[in-house]
């Protein structure tokens, strides 16, 4: 743990010290790498028993959710245990509007789902964000459960059977004509590895760009694109009056209010934006490969896993959220033996981390600086084992 921690800290600091063009180049490379990752299928990290593209889709979806939840928990300091509710609203809005009652086109419904989820966030946040911080956790838990019970019991929303045949996003290029013509503009092959020697895998093509049963990679690309866009937006907003207001509110709500920050409005904003991102992710999930959702797809446990992703990654850090989301979604798929123990392990992590590493694996950069500075002060003062606590 200690080794990982100093290593990560050092990497983060080294990155921060790079000149701007180098940082940019690094990011572009990283982005390209992540787009082609499911085609590269590198040994060790590729899941062999399960479709790797599908796993990567799940990872990206969870990372997206974690980035959204990080706004609520990490930036604004609001512990939302019912975040799954927003994921559900996004998914069901999509299901109802594209399949169950209407047949509207996907790219019209997607923004609608985001808006509906955002409105839900405001509706739930309006009454609940006035209650004390720790009560908020329980109230949001209650709301998450209420939303799930509503879709389970209301026939108009598919009840327990759920909604099936949700259409995929529109293809680019000619539609596939089964059984032989796979449609699309062109094929992109995958690699296969013999030890460390790569070769072209003949049987594993991805048609550009067909959303279908054959390959999950296009879905992954779609959600990765959204994830990148959201990350940019997240950065722009965090680095502005809004981000400062969130942080001030999280640090000391009364003091923030007395410095002219309308804290309630900003908390509501964080809640709404977080909800919108949850809704976006839910909407993409609903129209993903299976095209099928039901109430069991949204257990409250998942909410806690999302919280774990944010806390484990490092609350308040968007890269931390991605790392946390990736761990939560990837580890159980890669290590199937681990899948059954996933909740246990992340439960333990949630329990232990606040004690030993409250700032998470990849804390926000300023937290790193704060800790370095605090350590220096401690050394000057002759102490050695003090830590700054940050949430």
């Amino acid at each position, binding site marked *: 743990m200690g080794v990982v921690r100093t290593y990560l800290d050092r990497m983060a600091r080294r990155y921060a010290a790079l000149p701007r063009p180098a940082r940019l180049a690094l990011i572009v490379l990283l982005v390209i790498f992540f787009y082609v990752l499911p085609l590269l299928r590198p040994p060790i990290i590729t899941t062999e028993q399960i479709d790797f593209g599908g796993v990567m889709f799940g990872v990206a979806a969870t990372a997206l959710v974690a980035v959204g939840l990080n706004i609520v928990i990490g930036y604004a300091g609001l512990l939302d245990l019912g975040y799954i509710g927003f994921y559900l609203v996004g998914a069901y809005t999509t299901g109802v509007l594209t399949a169950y009652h209407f047949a509207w086109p996907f790219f019209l419904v997607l923004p609608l789902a985001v808006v509906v989820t955002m409105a839900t966030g405001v509706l739930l946040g309006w009454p609940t964000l006035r209650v004390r911080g720790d009560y908020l956790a329980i109230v949001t838990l209650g709301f998450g459960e209420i939303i799930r019970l509503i879709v389970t019991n209301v026939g108009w929303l598919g009840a327990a059977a759920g909604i099936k045949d949700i259409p995929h996003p529109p293809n680019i290029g000619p539609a596939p004509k089964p059984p032989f013509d796979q449609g699309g503009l062109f094929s992109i092959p995958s690699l296969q590895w013999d030890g460390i020697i790569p070769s072209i895998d003949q049987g594993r093509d991805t048609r550009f760009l067909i959303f279908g049963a054959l390959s999950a990679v296009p879905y992954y690309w779609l959600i990765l694109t959204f994830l990148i866009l959201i990350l940019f*937006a997240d950065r*722009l*907003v965090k*680095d*502005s*009056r*809004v*981000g*400062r*207001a969130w*942080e*001030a509110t999280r*640090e*000391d709500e*009364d*003091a*923030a*209010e*007395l*410095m*002219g*920050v*309308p*804290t309630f409005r900003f908390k509501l*904003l964080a809640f709404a*934006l977080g909800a919108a991102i949850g809704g976006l992710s839910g909407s993409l999930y609903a129209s993903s490969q299976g095209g099928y959702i039901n109430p069991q797809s949204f257990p409250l446990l998942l909410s806690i896993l999302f919280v774990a992703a944010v806390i484990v990654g490092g609350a308040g850090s968007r890269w931390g959220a991605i790392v946390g989301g990736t761990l939560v979604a990837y580890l159980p798929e890669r290590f199937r033996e681990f899948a059954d123990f996933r909740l246990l392990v992340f439960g333990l992590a949630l329990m232990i981390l606040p004690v030993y590493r409250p700032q998470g694996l990849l804390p926000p950069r*300023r*937290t790193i*600086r*704060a800790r370095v*500075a*605090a350590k220096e*002060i401690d050394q000057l003062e002759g102490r050695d084992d003090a830590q*700054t606590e*940050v949430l």
Partner: protein
Amino acid sequence: MAERARVLEVDDVTLRFGGLTALDSVSLHIDEGEILGMIGPNGAGKTTAFNVITGVYQPTSGAVRFEGQPLAGLKKHAITRRGIARTFQNIRLFNSMTALENVLVGADAHHSSGVLSALFRTSKHRREEDDGHERGMELLEFMGLTSRADELAANLSYGDQRRLEIARAMATGPKLLCLDEPAAGFNPQEKVQLMELIKRVRDRGYTVLLIEHDMRLVMGVTDRIVVLEFGKKIAEGTPAEIRDDPAVIAAYLGVDEDAS
């Protein structure tokens, strides 16, 4: 002293916490451009008076008027935007933010760019950011904190934290600046320096309401003094008048040592 505009009027304010009357029919006013001292033994109700003025508590009865307008029912942040800013007896900075960011939060009180401005980096966003940085750095310089601008508030020295609180309050662009024992925990020399600083703050056009325990210091910087004891105003006047007031002497007898 010439007739000056009244910045703040506290009119017959009473505040009860359950059985305890923390403020008992207190009336006072502050004129534009003056430094009004507020003194009184521990538990006299000084901080409570600040809390009423800044909207933390609603008075049980009575009214607070700022520039002639009643403040009743206004939210705290709205009162701040009207032009009353404060510091805290126990330092309450935003610890995970840098010194400059703390001041920026104050400066943001008069900004209005939201998510969309931030997303599209509109000219309004840039104008407000520039304005905030400029004002923030200027205030940090005024407080002698320029070199600490990028330091986290938590890592500043105690004295710097106290000064940063004042800078943050000034950044909200107040007319009236309320300082709650800004020199608490300072040594005598630092205290004198701070009082000089407060005079300079006034000279920049701020009106100052100052809580301070140390009688001698208060006498040196204030134009007028209000004395509270057990929630009641027991005296009001120029430093010279207060010094000779028998009620004040009685209130401070035996209290003076541990308070100063």
